[in-house]
């Protein structure tokens, strides 16, 4: 299955992209997606358990993801 990971701000800069398509085996969690990203060049900047949103809602590391999900890795927010 394939999911789309979105990267922002410092994370996008470190990995050189703001969007990564990831092919993973069927039974996959947020944690697996993060681990995949951390193994990419520049991915070491990601914490082991960053803030993650699945389809626009904050998610736990053990949340399952399914094909087509949009998984956003959220750097520490700095709005306001």
């Amino acid at each position, binding site marked *: 299955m394939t999911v789309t990971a*979105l990267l*922002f*701000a*410092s994370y996008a*800069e*470190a990995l050189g992209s703001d969007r990564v398509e990831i092919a993973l085996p069927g039974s996959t969690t947020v944690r697996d997606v993060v681990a995949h990203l951390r193994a990419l060049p520049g991915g070491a*900047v*990601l*914490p082991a358990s960053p*803030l993650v*949103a699945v389809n*626009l*809602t*904050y*998610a*736990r590391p053990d949340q399952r993801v399914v094909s087509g999900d949009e998984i*956003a890795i*959220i*750097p*520490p*927010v*700095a*709005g*306001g």
Partner: protein
Amino acid sequence: MSVRTAIVRRAIDVDALLAEVGDTANGAIVLFLGRVREMNDGRAVSGIEYSAYGEMAERELAAIANECASAFGIAHLAIEHRLGMLALGDASIAIAVAHPHRAAAYEASRFVIEEVKRRVPIWKREGYVDGTSEWVNANGVPQPHAAPEHRT
């Protein structure tokens, strides 16, 4: 009832926000502006570029407004957060909240800005007078509240 939130890429029109919450049922309006400050952490700032996960930022901002409305009995609330390149003194966020009485208006205003800082996916890259720039709070620096309520 008038509750409106927006992520914008233009200057915030404060008078327009005040007019939106101007219902005469309200004896108190609290207006909060967040602005680009000239110094941060001992460095002279030239400007800040704000970016966002736009779709989620819109949703979180709307959720905060609705939570605020129900928690504090607020019927008139307008919030705008600006993105893009902002200069010193520009407003990055404006929160206009009205209530019949001042105590609830002050509390509601504080609630909104604290929640925005905690959970709306917006980032800022600060530019300095010396020509350099840096992400603020970037690269794994721990946040005071790492966890919007969905995480443990």
